[in-house]
């Protein structure tokens, strides 16, 4: 008892923001299908994601990146293993608790933006706040501020169909950040964009999204954006590929 109290400062002392583990995957296994058609997509993933950093999850198409971040973000349950999210094992968050956890703590950016077509940019951005039950007027004011932060203040009242792909993705980023989540997951956010818009989006994620205590995971197989990662987790065939050991 006494020993542990004395020991604590030395182990928990913050060396730098990057040492803070926000998400920890412990032997995550995912299988799809039943019986004959059952296939194992993730073979026991162990990986940590740190706060205040931008972590890139890279690897060839079909290696299981989307499946892994779906599990991390609480959209899918793992078959075996667990994910510790900010100290809470995901296995303890079931049903509505998990839904609520997502609403409070997770921001999403999708490859296809997934904005609601009949809502303006500001209204789209306000959705996570509305989900949390904030009054609409307050939510719209906050949404407008975040939209300014991603450089789209002048487009606040336009519909998604009136915006370019890059602009829509920036609206999506604003939507993912408006409720100040502790975890931001982005699946191939630049895949549908040209090189220049892709750079703008990545730059925005790096500048605006990364904040103290927030974990940002960006899935990509776009080598042009690798330079934006503070840390890179490489996957191959449902496993974490050790750096420098990708050749079989």
């Amino acid at each position, binding site marked *: 008892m006494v020993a542990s109290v004395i020991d604590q400062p030395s182990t928990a002392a913050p060396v730098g923001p990057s040492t803070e583990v926000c998400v920890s995957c412990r032997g995550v296994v995912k299988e799809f299908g039943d019986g004959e058609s059952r296939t194992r997509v993730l073979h026991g993933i162990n990986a940590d994601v740190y706060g205040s950093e931008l972590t890139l999850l890279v690897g060839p198409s079909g290696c299981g990146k989307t499946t892994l971040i779906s599990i991390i973000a609480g959209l899918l349950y793992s078959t075996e293993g667990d994910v510790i999210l900010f100290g809470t094992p995901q296995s303890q968050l079931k049903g509505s608790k998990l839904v*609520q956890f997502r609403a409070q703590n*997770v921001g999403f950016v999708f490859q296809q933006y997934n904005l*609601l077509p009949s809502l303006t940019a500001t209204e789209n951005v306000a959705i996570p706040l509305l989900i949390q039950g904030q009054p609409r007027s307050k939510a719209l004011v906050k949404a407008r501020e975040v939209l300014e932060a991603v450089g789209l203040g002048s487009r606040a009242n336009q519909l998604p169909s009136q915006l370019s792909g890059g602009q829509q993705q920036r609206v999506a980023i604003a939507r993912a950040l408006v409720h100040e989540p502790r975890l931001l997951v982005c699946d191939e956010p630049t895949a549908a964009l040209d090189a220049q818009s892709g750079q703008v989006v990545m730059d925005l994620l790096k500048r605006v999204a990364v904040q103290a205590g927030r974990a940002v995971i960006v899935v990509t197989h776009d080598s042009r954006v690798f330079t934006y990662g503070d840390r890179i987790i490489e996957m191959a065939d449902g496993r974490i590929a050790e750096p420098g050991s990708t050749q079989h």
Partner: protein
Amino acid sequence: MSWVAWKMLTGDRAKYFGTVFGVAFGVLLISQQMAIFVGLMRRTAHAAIDVRDASIWVMDPEGKNVDEVKPLSDSDLYRVRGVEGVEWAVRLYKSLARARIDNGEFRQSILLGIDDHTLIGAPVKLVAGSLADLRRPDAIIIDRPGYRLFWGDGPIVLGKTLEMNDRRAVVVGVCDTTPPFQTFPVMYTRYSQALGFAPRERNQLSFVLAHEKEGADPQQVCQSIRTSTGLAARTRSDMIWFVIEFYLRSTGIPVNFGITIALGFIVGTAIAGQTFYLFTLENLKQFGALKAMGVSNGRLVGMILLQATIVGCIGYGLGIGMTSLFFESTQGVTALMGFYLPWQVAVIAAGAVAVIIVLASMISLRKVLILEPAVVFRG
């Protein structure tokens, strides 16, 4: 989130109006056909409906409806008058008569002979002439569609004549009645005179109209009449239903309308259900994104039900409005005269919409509920 649901629903004008009109069309079909059905059934009972001053109808027990009666005898009338609880009882003659106008044309008409002294059973709403003139020799009062049929569309002129059974009849008044089922002209005359307008039979008393003494229960008085005279006696509303039930039982009308109403229901469900289902299907990715962002299934159900309710209410309003407008604008058409939208039909149509909307949103809901939120990451 209700606001988001509303925005999603109305954002695409074309789809929104399509869904609303699907419901509206179904409501129009259902309510309009049901109202016409109710109107037609009312028409079969026109004679009973239009006699307002008598509360009891007495007829031969073998009579199947108002148009197929076995005549009573005068002694039957006196026996009814003698029954305990009967305040008064009078004659009513009803038959078909062939009327001939000046140009030699014949028309089948409905002839009603009302009591000479009391004029019980006389038309309530005269549009020309006066009821008192019915006491003049050869006088008849004809209904407005009948007048139009014989003498065209010009201004109504009293004093026109026609012939029935080789006897001259003079029009002293024009009235509005509940239009009869067969849309024949309706003529009112005194009982004694009606006998002259129709081919002679031994007994000519079609009905006895009666009224209970003040404070007596008409049902009870009917019962007394039945037991003491052996005749059939019914209250006014029982008489109306007696006639309607006869037509329901012995004609193809209910089946026919039943089919149309069922079709309206099916078509309405199909259109509204399909458009609403497609609407949900097209928004499935959006619902998936909302689900990923932490909207619970319960709230999604609420959103879809809200959307469905909005579509249902607006569609219902439009559909019922169109039906009312239809009946409003066809009041001048003889075939549809007197048809209206009974509130009961409006209520039933509302029930039908509720069922349509629940069915439509249920198939949509299923899709959304089984949706894996992880699909938002898939292309």
